[in-house]
């Protein structure tokens, strides 16, 4: 059993076999650590991470459909929560979770206009109008749509 400590100082005891899905934890375990502080992961996020790893620890054939359903539901979170998960998954090196998170966040960007994207992510525009015009002009040289992208292969 390995003990994880969140930034809020809450502790969680989890089986090693589940936690080694995290590359970071795996390395620490190999160096014989049994108590692992995670100062950049808060309790709320850590609970979710553990939930994810528990579900994915047992990857038998019969469970594959269940896992897919779980993943789909797991992504139904606020942007806040998704980003917190990206940070944690990035630090903990859980690549399967990142591969779920990136498209989910990308879905929130798809087909939106620039200003809408800024609002969703609470980003302030730091371009001057002149710079914006310049970028729009440069962008015109790049093709729209995927028909070119697709045939590049």
């Amino acid at each position: 059993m390995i003990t994880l400590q969140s930034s809020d100082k809450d502790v969680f005891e989890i089986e090693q076999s589940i936690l080694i899905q995290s590359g970071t934890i795996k390395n620490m375990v190999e160096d014989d650590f049994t108590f692992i502080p995670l100062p950049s992961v808060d309790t709320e996020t850590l609970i979710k991470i553990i939930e994810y790893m528990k579900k994915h620890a047992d990857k038998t054939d019969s469970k594959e459909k269940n896992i897919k359903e779980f993943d789909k539901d797991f992504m139904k979170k606020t942007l806040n929560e998704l980003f917190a998960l990206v940070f944690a998954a990035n630090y903990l090196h859980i690549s399967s979770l990142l591969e779920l998170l990136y498209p989910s966040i990308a879905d929130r960007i798809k087909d939106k206009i620039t200003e809408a994207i800024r609002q969703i992510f609470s980003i302030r525009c730091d371009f001057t109008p002149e710079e914006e015009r310049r970028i729009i002009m440069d962008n015109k040289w790049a093709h729209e749509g995927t028909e070119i992208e697709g045939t590049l292969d």
Partner: protein
Amino acid sequence: MGQYSSTHCGGGPKHRHRTPLTNHQYIISNNSDFFSLINSDDDESTVPSVFENRDYTDDLPDECLALIFQCLSSGDRKKCSLVCRRWLLVEGQSRHRLALNAKVEILPHVPAIFSRFDSVTKLALRCDRKSVSLNDEALTLISLRCSSLIRLKLRGCRDVTDVGMAAFARNCKSLKKFSCGSCMFGAKGMNALLDNCSSLEELSVKRLRGINDGFAADPIGPGAAASSLKSICLKELYNGQCFAPLIIGSKNLKTLKLLRCLGDWDRLFETIGSSENHVAEIHLERLQVSDAGLNAISNCPKLEILHLVKTPECTDAGVVAVARKCKLLRKLHIDGWRTNRIGDDGLVAIAENSSNLKELVLIGLNPTSTSLLAIASNCQKLERLALCGSDTIGDPEVSCIATKCMALKKLCIKGCEVTDEGIESFAWGCPNLVKIKVKKCKHVTGDVADWLRARRRSLAVNLDGGEVDIEPVDGSASEGGALEEAAEFQHTATTLPVIRAADIPSTSNVGRSSAAKPWFGLFGGRGLVACTLRRWSNGNGDSSESL
């Protein structure tokens, strides 16, 4: 350089780096601490808690942001590039694929474009027919900026000459894939590419005008790329023969596709077949190749995939030769163009020899139950079968398939004389069948589809009601070999075979003047059409015609 300067700190996902052009200052720290945010703006003088009312992506490492962008289309990425400076930077640096509108006016923008997109490895430059394309100077400049380019695709870059190609080749030596269509450079440019890009693996050339001067174009190849080339595809070339040294010299060639190229190609295959080769895939379409060529192809022992599309000089004898010696054959497409030169004899030989056959597409052939029974019985690994435009395939033949093809997963029947009764046999036949498609069979009604679906729930049934439409003329054949696309079916032939007078079959639709239009129309000019028709009717390339 441009206004988008960047400072890169090395390091993996644990570190964040920022340009100096931002409103906030950050302490770049190790990921094991919380990021401390010190805001230099007057408005927010307190340390805000992370993720609250501020840029969500602020603290996300660039690599993570880049990976999010990778899930987006080009159009969405453009919107992202306008969000803020950091997004512009990350988006530009994480663009590995770029497609540009290659007009001549792009030249002054090239430095800015490639400062922003500084990691491009796959580039497409495409110019429409109405515009003047980018020129040698622009291509050279681009090549200097993208010296680690792996793939380049040129379309309609008519103002690029041999000089530009040579400069490009010298600057982009790591190129692995090159594809050009409707360009005007010539043998010198092509040779420069082959001499400099010694890692080139795939070459695709369509309508290269610069090699058309006269019949004695300069030979192309082998060049330094000869040993690395794995795939060569030539389409719609007048002087495709000048690539012969390259094709023959590429000793590791695995895939060769020759589509609608003039000239007699038998000799090329004789040369390939006469020495050790690794050719595994050959596509021949509307090409002058005869049984002599097929005989030579039978000397490619590693052949796995063969497409013979509208090659009216190939007969059963040639197919038999290939079947007997190419034991690894697993995909075979034959479009006989209704000339009745390939039929039972060839297919029986396939049945007897090609035990590895997984995919079979027969278009415009008239096999009888003899060969179909043989194939159904002997090709026990057959998974995908398409039968199109055949006068002889009816219910007995289809039932035979249902009864005997144990491994069949996908079946397509198009424009054949089957009725509902034949289709019904799939309620119990072909135990592994996943998908059945029936199109343009006038005696098959929609009822049988429902009937079949009810009896076999896991089977996907795709049926159109049996109306016979005239299919639009499509000059291009599929190359990927998707089963549905391979059925370039001509029920009422609007494209007509261009063949010698003696070979005109009894079907009523063959004519001369309109025959050449769809294909030769692509080359343009009536004079060309007349010359080429004469050429075909003379049998071998009568090279005294100047095109």
